[in-house]
């Protein structure tokens, strides 16, 4: 069976250029980057180079000698989010301060904020957009951090981070943005965004799982969560994962060089997918269509169906898509993001996410469209959504 993968917001394959770049770091530059000898220095050099590449992808000029030190390598998006929130909000206070976030964040942010003394989850509109004024109104004297994602994982909706960061700056509060679904999909410039902290994850843009980064603006006080040696300028103890950092750097380099052209290509395919499905499937609606979105993501609601059999039927035909988020058993839960946008549980359960990537071709997209038309009709006939 020909299989095609339309779940790139879940994860991406490691690209050939990334794999090629990281292999020597596993087998040749294997030194401990903290060691003083030749091997350690070689590893340190590749690590520093990777850090500059990642910084450059986030709009941090490589010319400033120290600029790259604003990047902390982590194990991924979840660790970056936790480090940002706890690192800013916990120090000096028994259980940490107050956080402002939104109802559509990733669990890595929501669950981390839930550990603090108090948290305000600001609601979003029907398109899944956060109103910066609502953030302003949620400010309290105890607020320590504002955390708003740059792009949503399920809908692709891009949030007005620049406006929100301005509010944070005026109030003198740290601003974090979870950029896991934005970095590698849209241009990101942390200076223009005005954020203090910004999370990225390698496996969302063709680096391996297990490597991520946190931008920490110079001057932001961040307490470490991992304690041990003096790695990452005392912000993240643990021997540096040099090979994966090299992979993240190479993936960032590819985005700098090829990203804009690839994004335009994916957006054309995504728009073709949406237009064809809305045209050919009765009762199909694009969730979040009224807001700016990442170019690869499409979240489509099919009236009167349950997305679970649709996702299975498509998988059995060789098309990998997703619905909702997985609970501990692996069953799909109705998406909290779609419910936060005002969809009913039934509408949320009727929604499917298609997320495109580098491997997807026009032929694959056209085959997917035909399969969706056929499978939605079949599911509607055999398994109507329950009342």
């Amino acid at each position, binding site marked *: 069976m020909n299989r095609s993968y339309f779940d790139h917001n879940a994860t991406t394959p490691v690209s050939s250029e990334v794999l090629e770049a990281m292999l020597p770091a596993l087998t040749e530059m294997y030194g401990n980057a903290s060691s003083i000898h030749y091997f350690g220095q070689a590893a340190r050099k590749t690590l520093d180079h990777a850090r500059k590449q990642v910084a450059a992808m986030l709009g941090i000029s490589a010319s400033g000698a120290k600029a790259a030190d604003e990047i902390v390598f982590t194990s991924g998006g979840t660790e970056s989010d936790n480090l940002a929130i706890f690192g800013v909000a916990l120090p000096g206070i028994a259980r940490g301060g107050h956080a402002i976030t939104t109802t559509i964040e990733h669990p890595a942010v929501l669950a981390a904020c839930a550990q603090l003394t108090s948290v305000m989850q600001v609601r979003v509109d029907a398109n899944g957009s956060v109103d910066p004024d609502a953030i302003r109104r949620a400010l309290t004297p105890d607020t320590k951090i504002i955390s708003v994602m740059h792009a949503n994982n399920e809908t692709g909706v891009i949030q007005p981070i620049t406006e929100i960061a301005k509010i944070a700056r005026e109030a003198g509060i740290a601003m974090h943005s979870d950029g896991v679904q934005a970095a590698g999909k849209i241009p990101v410039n942390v200076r223009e965004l005005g954020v203090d902290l910004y999370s990225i994850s390698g496996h969302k843009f063709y680096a391996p799982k297990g490597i991520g980064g946190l931008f920490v603006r110079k001057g932001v006080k961040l307490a470490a969560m991992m304690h041990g040696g003096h790695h990452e300028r005392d912000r993240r103890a643990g021997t540096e994962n040099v090979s994966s950092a090299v992979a993240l750097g190479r993936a960032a380099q590819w985005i700098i060089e090829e990203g804009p052209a690839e994004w335009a290509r994916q957006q054309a395919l995504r728009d073709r997918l949406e237009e064809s499905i809305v045209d050919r499937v009765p009762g199909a609606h694009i969730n979040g269509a009224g807001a700016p979105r990442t170019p690869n993501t499409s979240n489509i609601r099919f009236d009167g169906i*349950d997305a679970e*059999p649709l996702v*299975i*039927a498509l998988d059995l035909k060789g098309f990998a898509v997703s619905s909702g988020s997985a609970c501990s*058993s*692996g*069953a799909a839960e109705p998406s909290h993001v779609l419910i936060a946008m005002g969809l009913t549980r039934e509408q949320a359960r009727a929604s499917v996410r298609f997320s495109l990537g580098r491997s997807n071709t026009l032929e694959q997209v056209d085959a997917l469209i035909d399969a969706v038309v056929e499978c939605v009709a079949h599911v509607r006939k*055999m*398994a109507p959504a329950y009342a």
Partner: protein
Amino acid sequence: MPEREGTIAVAMSGGVDSSVVAGMLHRQGRQVIGLTMQLWNQRRLPELAVEGPTGRCCSIDDVYDARHVAQHLGIPYYVVNFEQRFEEQVVKPFIDEYLAGRTPIPCTLCNNFIKFDQFLEMAEGAGADRIATGHYARIDWNPDSGRWEMRRSVDRSKDQTYFLCGLTQAQLARTMFPLGGFEKSAVRELARELGIPTAEKRDSQEICFVPNGDYAAFIDSYFREQGISPDDTRGELVTTDGRVAGEHAGVHHFTVGQRRGIGVAAMEPLYVIATEPATRRVIIGRGDALLRSRMRVHGVNWISIAPPAEPIRAEVKIRNKHAAAASSILPSGDPAGVEVVFDEPQRAITPGQGAVFYSGDLVLGGGWIA
């Protein structure tokens, strides 16, 4: 005989029986997919949590086992979420029945409204042509009557037809019970032969979402979660001659024929004779007050025969462990309602339980005791 090929979705619980079903169908070269229903979040009602293996389904361990078996067999496998439907269509009716003074059978509700209804539809939506489960029962096509017939399993001790009496002809046409012709020991042997990783796992015995079979504790916990006070369920224990003999915590703690846990001292054994939800009274009395010869049965589903126009003879089972008793079934004009007259009086005919009609191995049909 109607077409029985195509893709088969096996309802996999993680237990031995459904694992063997998946394994034997796969070995026969059928197109098989495994589906596990997530029915109940076992982390809810944490005060009911028990240590160690519980024999309950839907735990993460069971899903792990089912997935492990599917990986071993190399079949596509998915977990599907039925939690909301299960709560609405099995758990809440189960509680409502107790509060209405009846003793419900959630397994039958689940079979009628989840497994052989919405799960079957979901499996078909996903591309399956029929489903197979690990139930012990047999389905055969009778060309003479043009009906699907249901028979008790060859292993009488495992027979589950009592819980399957609600299956319609349309459902039976799309369902397979591959274990109906096997002894349980042979199924375990088959599990070992197929190399199924869960071959030695013990059987589950209880209502899947109720730990330790303590359904009253489950209902109490559910009420606490929903903010219902114990004061709203408390009532009086009243003897058959009208004397108030004590207090009780709620009619859901009692079922007709129950002797233990009544909490009233008496010269002779006392039994629950009836529960009266409107007054929240529980009627207790001597064992001989439990004997009845007649009962009305509603919601009758006829399986192996068309609805009879004339009285018929049958053996009728009034609870799962009851030995079916000889009786006459008197039609009422409405095919879904009959009166059953037993040859000998039966003990503790319990409203809310199923009444299933047999002729030898053949399951004629069944309904609910009024």
